[in-house]
């Protein structure tokens, strides 16, 4: 079939082309700085996490004061856990079992000697984390720098990691959430736990919220740092103090070490 309209094509509107070209140019020049600025801002987070460091905590239980909850309050503020609200019909006792807890205080008594110990418990950031082994989708993962955390886009909420964790470190989000922090997105139906203030790591900040709060109280029971750097304060402390891992028998090589337990 012959195309009869071929010869009737309108001549190209040069002016229109110029206008569109100019508009595109102006548009690009207006958007570009934003894009470039954004890229510059994102630079520290764009570099991949390095295994040259291994983040961890050293906890001196002798310095952990009874009745002090500074680390817990700081963690709750840092990660938006203080924004959790109890669903109305729920009893307080049940809510205590269902709300998310990333760090908790535990008070122990030795069965033989009666000695009392206070300590904070959180994710122990194992080198061989059972939660990572059992996660069917790979949502539970360990970063190159030793931080064990949950990818909230992959977590299907099966809770197998909670079954596997020997430290009861993980929480399941049982209720719908409102008003979260942009730095710590959380969502109903996913599992979460202490991630050593991972957004602080990505912005190159020094410490964790719990360690800062403990220091501000003057206790200095929690020291954060790089376990691989022999000169870091945490490595120096671990060299000087006899410390151990909780559930050492499982040989998970935890990133959190305790003195005086």
């Amino acid at each position: 079939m012959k195309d009869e309209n071929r010869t009737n094509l309108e001549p190209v509107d040069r002016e229109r082309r110029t206008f569109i070209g100019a508009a595109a140019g102006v548009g690009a020049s207006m958007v570009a700085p934003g894009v470039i600025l954004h890229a510059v801002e994102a630079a520290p987070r764009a570099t991949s996490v390095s295994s040259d460091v291994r983040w961890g905590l050293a906890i001196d239980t002798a310095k952990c004061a009874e009745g002090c909850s500074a680390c817990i309050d700081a963690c709750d503020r840092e990660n938006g856990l203080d924004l959790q609200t109890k669903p109305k019909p729920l009893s307080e006792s049940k809510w205590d079992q269902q709300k998310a807890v990333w760090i908790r205080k535990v008070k122990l008594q030795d069965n033989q000697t009666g000695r009392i110990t206070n300590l904070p418990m959180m994710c122990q950031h194992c080198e061989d984390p059972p939660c990572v082994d059992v996660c069917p989708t790979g949502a539970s993962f360990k970063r190159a720098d030793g931080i064990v955390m949950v990818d909230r886009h992959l977590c299907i909420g099966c809770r197998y990691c909670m079954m596997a964790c020997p430290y009861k470190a993980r929480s399941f989000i049982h209720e719908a959430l409102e008003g979260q922090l942009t730095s710590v997105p959380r969502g109903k139906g996913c599992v979460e736990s202490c991630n050593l203030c991972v957004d602080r790591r990505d912005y190159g900040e020094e410490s964790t919220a719990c360690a800062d709060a403990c220091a501000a109280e003057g206790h200095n029971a929690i020291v954060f740092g790089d376990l691989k750097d022999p000169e870091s304060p945490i490595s120096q402390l671990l060299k000087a103090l006899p410390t151990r891992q909780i559930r050492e028998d499982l040989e998970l090589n935890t990133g959190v070490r305790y003195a005086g337990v």
Partner: protein
Amino acid sequence: MMKRIVYREWRIPPARFWGILGILASVIGIGTLSFGYMEHQGHWVTGMNNAVVWGLPHVFAVFLVIAASGALNIASIGTVFRKPIYKPLGRLSGLLAVALLMGGLLILVTDLGRPERLIVAITSYNFSSIFAWNIFLYTGFMAIVIAYLWTMADRQGGPFNRPVGILALFWRLALTTGTGSIFGFLVAREAYSAAILGPMFVILSFAYGLAVFLLVLMFAFAEEGRVIGPKILRRLKNLLALFVAGALYFMLIYHLTNLYAAKHDDFESWLLLHGGIYTFAFWVGSILIGGLLPLWILYHPEKGKNCNWVAAAAALVIVGGLSTMYVVIIGSQAYPMPLFPGQTILESGFGDGVGGRAASYWPSIPELLLGLGGVAVGLLITAVGVRVLQFLPESLADDVVPVDEETLGEAAFAKPA
């Protein structure tokens, strides 16, 4: 002389059939509403918490999944172990295996925190997780059993019957071992971390699967007036008794092993003596209702021959099985984790078993309804299956069922040796 086995659709009156279907569909509907409620509100409406993270839905789901693999046993005995008397039951056995597995998996999926992300579970795998393996074991099982059913029902499939049957047998052993290993490989909790849980789940599956199979078979036959002869009934009830005894034996070994190791003393004394609901569920549910009572019925010289008593025994095995799952899944989570051996936790901000107390869990009604919904899914698939396709043999009367090698030997037993 062996007669040809004739299979017929389940021809109960339409009103009766649609009535049964309606009941099952209503239970499924209520289960679906429960799922919607829990999914919309979040898991705070359930009894689950951060200590007991798997609740009643998992009890039903795991029971159905292992009963599914156990239900396939009858087909395996006929095809793989060449016992002709079991052959007429092979088709129903395969159908039940697929149906129960479907019901169990649906519960597992609907109890996820993010069920809408199921696609993630299907596309993103971590192969060090037994869960990830199970996704393949479960879907593979369904595919193999459907192929197995085809080899039973279609003349062209005949030559493949035994090879597919053998594959299905090994696959189901792997599947149940995998299900048991979900718990057996957890080093964190005292009640788990025991390799025996894998094989124990296999033997439990034999008992639960056969109990469900027997009840479904007896119900379907009674509804339509088909005959189950004493010969096949005796074989099936003896098999059930054997499986129940085997399950008791494995449970005994599991607890003896724990009792032998001093570090598990506390857990055993809690579960066996001081565990409240879990102690009750163990002794009354698992041991008495699920073990000793059915054994007594099945080996009773009179009651063991009576259809109704055998059905009652099968029902008791199912009740006991649910109790066992309750103890194994929930009791083991409720018992506090041994974070600090040799020390007592006086205070904790996260319920770490203060003073050695167990975590609290009480199932909510939506959880129960979701579990029952899964059971109904399994039964609905079975009911529709036997109605539209030729799954059920027309009769299991003594003169119809194939001769068994057992009968050949009867003369030998007539005279004492």
